[in-house]
């Protein structure tokens, strides 16, 4: 039986060969590793891997867990489950297709009005999180059809702050999960 885990962009197949109480043998690419473990709390596990002790700190559920090992966080996902769970979790560097904040934020300024024409890249709404302002821009050329927030609103990633109707052109298909294939 095996897991296919994904750490960053690397797929790691892991075969669980043998599991007993508090002991497991796991195989990575044919290399077997003996693991003794003890759960200390919901977020803390003590591991003895091939005789060497270490601690892992973990948060998250089956779809995606953050594992911290000696100060370094690893995002570990189940590669078979992750395809449909990756929407709206991109950082601000990803190309947005909607006017939505990258982190929980507060709306500071609304720079457009309903009916306004916008070009791709135009500033639409400014939000602030922890004293840092971020300008959300129009993802494509179009017309602002609706503003869904007012200044001072608390907003979350994934929440659409302004609806923009895209200019007529070749219809392109929404490509969810593109980066995970």
């Amino acid at each position, binding site marked *: 039986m095996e897991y296919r885990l994904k750490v960053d962009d690397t797929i790691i197949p892991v075969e669980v060969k043998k599991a007993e109480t508090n002991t497991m043998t796991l195989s990575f690419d044919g290399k077997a590793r003996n693991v003794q473990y003890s759960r200390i709390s919901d977020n803390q596990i003590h591991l003895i891997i091939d005789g060497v002790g270490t601690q*892992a700190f973990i948060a998250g559920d089956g779809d995606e867990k953050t594992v911290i090992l000696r100060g370094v966080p690893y995002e570990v996902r189940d590669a078979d489950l992750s395809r449909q769970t990756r929407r709206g979790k991109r950082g601000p560097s990803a190309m947005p297709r909607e006017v939505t904040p990258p982190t*929980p934020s507060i709306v500071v300024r609304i720079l457009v009005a309903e009916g306004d024409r916008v070009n791709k890249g135009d500033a639409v709404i400014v939000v602030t*999180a922890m004293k840092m302002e971020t300008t959300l821009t129009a993802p494509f050329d179009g017309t602002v059809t609706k503003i869904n927030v007012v200044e001072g609103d608390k907003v979350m990633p994934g929440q659409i702050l302004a609806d923009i109707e895209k200019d007529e052109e070749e219809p392109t298909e929404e490509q969810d999960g593109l980066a995970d294939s």
Partner: protein
Amino acid sequence: MFKKILVANRGEIARRIMNTCREMGIKTVALYSDADRDAVHVLEADQALCLGDAEPAASYLNIDKIIAAARETGADAIHPGYGFLAENADFAERCEQEGLVFIGPPSRVISELGDKTIARQTMTKSGVPVIPGMNHPESDPEVLVREADAIGYPVLIKAAAGGGGKGMRVVASADELHDACISASSEAAGAFGNGSIYLEKYLTRPRHIEFQILADSHGNVVHLLERECSIQRRHQKIIEETPSPAMTPELRKKMGDAAIAAAQASGYVNAGTVEFLLDEDGSFYFLEVNTRLQVEHPITEMTTGIDIVRCQLEIAAGNPLSIDQKDIKGRGHAIECRIYAEDPGNDFFPSPGKIVFMKEPSGPGIRNDCGIYSGFQVPVEYDPILSKLIVAAENREEAVHRMIEALREYVILGVRTPIPFLIDVLRSEAFRKGETFTDFIGCHFPDWKPERADVETAAIAYIIDELAGKKERPVADNRGGGYGSPWQTLGNWRP
């Protein structure tokens, strides 16, 4: 001495101030906004009053509400911490008018040092070296072009009312100056309500070195040695240390004397920080005076053994300094790392959220000034600082090792933190060699990503977390009450 102090701040700094108050037998009053009902400073205060809406203007920046809270609770003094109203001359003046002691310098001093061009004039008159540049704000582009030619490019545009990098622009040549002045002035107007700008020579590779000063109301001034704070991102310090790796006894004497001269020239009273830039050729220039308790004050406390907040209270109560300059000796080496809720792998973008789990490092020479706990929701309204991890050891090398291990032991789950980035900075050869300049991050870590060397262990931890069950939720109907065997609780298996 005061009977009751109101702390007009939040989080780790409010907690740190209240710790000293308690040691001195002084009662404490905390203030909080709707977003901070469960914040650490509220939990530990003798009394706590809600100011209302989370928005800073309605809470931590609302002078009327804070004064009313001091009246209501019978506090005799207000400590402003850092940020918020700490350098607001109007607030200090209002306290003075209301008969409340503002724990900080007189409002006139805050006001005069807050205007960067007036501060430059004061320092120039007293023989404190300032960065070559203008001593008056200017709005006429023609005049600015002439001034820039006289100073020599590159020049730095700065806001007269400046701070935090707002309104600052580096200009490399004359044809960029006009547009840069307009945008800097507009940014400064937005941030400070004052669009005045001036020009300084831009130093390309300085170190940021500052001196902690203490001045009492009887005319005594001492300095508590230097701190180097060159490691910065977005003009904000993230690692500070004392002593500076660039310091020599002769330079320390010269800069320390200049810091004291700066304090005396401005009529300074209470704790403050005189900031300098140290150029590669060994010349140093006055930058500004921070008229408040500084974020990084703990490293000075660690090496001098002096509680700076206690000194602030003694000074504010009118007592003379109990220490002479000759008594002040730094012992060993101290480093502070600021732990913000931010993503170092994504341009230090803020990362608010709930602290799912945390474990603080401990051991000899480790101090964590911490504003969070497991279960705390980090508000989006305020500064992203979660805690300040400080270590002290006999020398710089040992302090660096101690800090690296303390960072590795520091677990915060639920928000992103710069911990892995800080570890890499401290491990880097440039840092080890003390080659710390203000361009350090851009120069050595321009596009940092964490080095994930132990992917297999992370995978093992994931699988065991899936299979081992949760401690607080025993698996139902499990024989003997232990954890379910992997075969009973199996999750996403591929047969």
